[in-house]
C-alpha cells in the first residue's frame, strides 16, 4: 500500500481522522512551544501566585506564580518525546525477541515466551518502580524502566504473525531460490509484519505517556522545574481545593493526547490490518 493511499484512507475514516487531527495539533504545539507560550516554563513571579484563569493568563498561575499555560505547552514536548522514545525502545526489544522466537521456534521460542509472559503478568507500574529504585529517578531512567517492562505485547504479536507467515508458500519459494535465514526474516517476513507493528506502536503510545506521567506524579520521573504533565499534576494536587486549575489543565492535555493516539491507532488497525486483534 502506498503512503498516499494510507493517508487518504486515514483522513477519510472518521475515527482515525479525528485522532490524526488531535495528534497534528498537539505536535504543532510541541514544535512551536517557544512561540505559543507567553512566558518561559520556569519564570517565577511570586507576586502573582495562585491566580485563577483570566484573559491575561488563560490557565492561571501556580503557587510559584508560574504561568500554567506556558508550562502545559512546554510539557507537550516532554510528553511526546518520552512517549515516542519509550515506544521505540519497546518495539526494538519486543520485535527483536518476537522475530527470533517466531522464526527459530523450539526451545528458544519456549524460553522467550516464558520470559514474555512473566514480564506481562506483573503490574507494569510496580515493576517500573522496582527498576527505578535500582537505577535512580529521572526522565531517562523512567523511559528505560517503562520500556523494560512493557515490551511483551510486541513480542507476542510479532511471534504470532511470524508463526503463521512462516508456513506460507512464498517463504518456501524464497528458500527454493537459496535465500538465507537472515534475508528471509528481513526481506520476506518483517515487511509483512510492519503494518501490525505500526498499529501496535500507536496503540501503546498513550499508555507509555500515561505511565511516564504516573511515575512523574509519584516523584520518580522529571524533577522540578521540568514542566512534565505528571509532575504538574502532583504539584497541583496539593492545591486542588484552592487552585484546581493547576492540576486540571495538564490532566485535560494528558487525556486529549492519549485519546488522539488511541483513535489513530484504532483507525490504522482497521485500514492496515483488519485481521489484527489485540
Amino acid at each position, binding site marked *: 500500500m502506498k503512503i498516499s493511499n494510507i493517508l487518504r484512507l486515514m483522513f477519510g475514516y472518521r475515527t482515525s481522522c479525528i485522532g490524526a487531527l488531535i495528534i497534528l495539533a498537539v505536535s504543532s504545539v510541541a514544535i512551536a512551544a517557544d512561540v505559543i507560550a507567553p512566558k518561559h516554563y520556569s519564570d517565577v513571579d511570586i507576586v502573582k501566585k495562585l491566580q485563577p484563569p483570566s484573559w491575561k493568563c488563560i490557565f492561571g498561575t501556580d503557587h510559584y506564580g508560574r504561568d500554567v499555560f506556558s508550562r502545559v505547552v512546554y510539557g507537550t514536548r516532554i510528553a511526546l518525546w518520552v512517549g515516542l522514545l519509550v515506544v521505540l525502545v519497546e518495539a526494538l526489544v519486543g520485535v527483536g525477541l518476537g522475530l527470533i522466537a517466531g522464526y527459530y521456534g523450539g526451545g528458544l521460542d519456549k524460553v522467550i515466551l516464558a520470559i514474555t509472559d512473566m514480564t506481562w503478568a506483573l503490574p507494569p507500574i510496580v515493576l517500573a518502580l522496582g527498576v527505578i529504585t535500582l537505577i535512580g529517578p529521572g526522565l531517562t531512567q523512567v523511559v528505560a524502566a517503562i520500556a523494560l517492562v512493557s515490551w511483551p505485547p510486541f513480542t507476542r504479536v510479532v511471534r504470532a504473525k511470524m508463526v503463521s507467515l512462516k508456513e*506460507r*508458500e512464498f517463504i*518456501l519459494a524464497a528458500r527454493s531460490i*537459496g535465500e538465507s535465514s537472515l*534475508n528471509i526474516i528481513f526481506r*520476506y517476513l518483517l515487511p509483512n509484519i510492519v503494518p501490525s507493528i505500526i498499529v501496535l506502536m500507536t496503540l501503546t503510545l498513550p499508555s507509555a505517556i500515561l505511565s511516564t506521567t504516573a511515575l512523574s506524579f509519584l516523584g520518580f520521573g522529571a524533577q522540578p522545574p521540568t514542566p512534565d504533565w505528571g509532575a504538574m499534576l502532583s504539584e497541583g494536587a496539593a492545591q486542588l481545593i484552592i487552585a484546581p486549575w493547576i492540576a486540571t489543565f495538564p490532566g485535560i492535555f494528558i487525556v486529549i493526547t492519549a485519546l488522539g493516539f488511541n483513535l489513530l491507532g484504532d483507525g490504522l488497525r482497521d485500514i492496515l490490518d483488519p485481521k489484527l486483534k489485540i
Partner: protein
Amino acid sequence: MEHLVEVQDLKKSFLTKGGIFGKSSDVKAVDGVDLYLNKGETLGVVGESGCGKTTLGRLVLRLIKPTSGKINFDEVDITNLSERKLLWLRKRTGMVFQDPSASLNPRMNIRSTLKRPLVVHGIKDKNTIQKRIIEMLEKVGLNEDQLERFPHQISGGQQQRVAIARAIMLNPDLVVLDEPTSSLDVSVQAQILNLLLKLQRDLNLTYLFITHDLVVERHVSDRIVVMYCGKILESADTDELLGNTMHPYTVSLFSSTPIPNPHLKSTNRFIVGGEPPSLIHPPRGCRFHPRCPYAEGKCKKVEPKLVEAAKDHFLACHKFEEIDLLTYVKRFWKLMERLN
C-alpha cells in the same frame, strides 16, 4: 539415458502431537518411494490430495529433510547436506507452486521478486540484472511496465508467469511444478501449460510435474507415476500408462474426470467409493484394498511390490493378471476423443 535425479526408498513422516495425554503419531506422507528423472523429460506425479505428491516434490528439492532413503542429484548425494551446502542445488533447481498469490511475497514488487535469485547467487552488476529480467519477462510473456507492480495488482495468470520466471531465472536443470495450473481459470490453464512446454523446449528443462489431473498429465508428461497413500502404485510411459492401464486406482483416477455429457450413463464409469486412508495408520496389505472392488484375501494381508508387469510398466497389484480394465480405459478415451 542419464538420470538427473535418483530417489531410493525415500520416506518422510511428520510428527503430530496429540495433546497432553494423547500419543504423538507419525504421519507417513511419503513411505518408500523409488523413482528417477531422465535429463530433459517431464515426469508426471499424479494422485488425489493427501497422497504425498507435494511432499515428494519438496523432498526432491531438499526443501525438507527426508526421514530416510536417498536422493541423488546429478550423481551427488544431497540427502543430508546442510542448507549452506545446498546453495548450488538451489541454483540448478526451481519450483513453481500451486497458488501464485501465496507463492509471491505480497510486499515485494515484480522487479525485486525476479532480482532476488540473481542477487542471492552472486550476480551484482545492475546492467546484467536488468538485461536478464527483461529477457525473462519476454520469455514468459509479460510486459516491462508490470515490473514496478505488486503481486495483488496483476492477474492470477500473470502472477503464475512471474513465479515461473523466478524459477527459471538462473537457467536451472530441474523445475518442480506443484499443480501449477490447478488454481487458475481453465482458459489461463492452457496458456500456462503451453508456456511451460515452450520453455522446456527452449531451455532444455527437466520437469517434475505434480498434479491430480490425468488429462493435464497426458498433455505434458513423458512418463507418469501414480501415487496413493505415500506409495507408488503404477508407473510407465504416458501412452502405455493411459492406453494400457492396469491398476484399478489409476483407472478410477482418470475415470473421475468430469465429462460434460448429460446422457452419459454412470455404468460407463469406473468410480471407487470411500475416502483416502489415514496416513497415520495406513491399511495393512495393499493400501488401496479398502476401496478396491477386486480386493480379496491376499490384498488385505500382503503388501504388493512394484513389479515390471509389461515392458517399462511398473505396477503394485496382486490381481492385475486376473482383472481386465481395458474395456473401461478404451471406452473412456473414446468418450474424451468424441468431445474433442
